[in-house]
């Protein structure tokens, strides 16, 4: 993947190169590039003057960051307590069966990836899942194929 260093620099600039804003910069970089590839971390390290291992430390410590590319429509299965007691673990398995990948993996066509999230704060809709930016609530396993179909390209 091509990384335009100017885009990274613009983000760093917006935050005044401040160390305190390191997490915010990395979040914005991740938004821009969908994940945090090495050249991005390298650039941030140089520009903010924080050693690369420290930047890498942050990028691996917090759950929001990913060093690997994720799918265009990442599916986040909520693992909050309310979702758990309403069957979230079985729902996760249904997504894994349907996409034939495991949690933390991305499909070969880079369309979907599966991850869990601690709580989406939509406990009233338990069990809940986000696909891309959409929240889907009160799900049954049988709903999974229909939901994923919405994001798949229409067959010609």
């Amino acid at each position, binding site marked *: 993947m091509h990384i335009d260093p100017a885009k990274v620099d613009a983000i760093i600039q917006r935050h005044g190169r401040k160390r305190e804003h390191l997490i915010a910069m990395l979040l914005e970089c991740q938004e821009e590039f969908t994940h945090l590839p090495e050249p991005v971390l390298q650039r941030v390290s140089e520009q903010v003057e924080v050693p690369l291992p420290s930047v890498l430390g942050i990028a691996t410590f917090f759950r929001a960051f990913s060093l690997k590319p994720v799918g265009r429509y990442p599916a986040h299965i909520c693992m909050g307590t309310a979702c758990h007691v309403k069957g979230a673990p079985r729902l996760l398995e249904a997504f894994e069966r349907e996409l034939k990948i495991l949690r933390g993996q991305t499909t070969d066509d880079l369309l979907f990836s599966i991850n869990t999230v601690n709580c*989406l*704060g*939509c*406990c*009233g*809709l338990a069990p*809940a899942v986000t696909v891309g930016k959409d*929240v889907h*609530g009160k799900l049954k396993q049988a709903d999974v194929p229909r939901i994923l179909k919405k994001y798949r390209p229409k067959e010609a």
Partner: protein
Amino acid sequence: MPRITIEDLKKIKEEARQKMTLRSGDARARVVVHMSTCGIAAGAREVLDAFLRDAEARHLTDLLVTTSSCAGLCSREPMATVEIAGQAPVKYVDLDPAKAGRIVAEHILGGAVVREFALAAGSETAS
């Protein structure tokens, strides 16, 4: 806006308070769609759009459609509160765009509360 003093604050409060209470003459009715993360996930945005579309299609220039936050009863989202001048506000639950259309037709224009999805009348008050 210039920086305000405590006296200005009082003035703003009086003006804003008058705008908040619905009096006959100002507007026929006000619809408040409850929009927080969970409400939006349950479809509140589509409900809001339906109210706006309906108000426009029927040329209801005196119907105020606004948004506020979560009303607390997540399991019955999307929710909306309908207030007609001089009457207790009515809370509607489990809404969708079609139900929004019926609320406009029957309650706001017809004056009859749509009982099938009306939860209750009145407002929550702080104590």
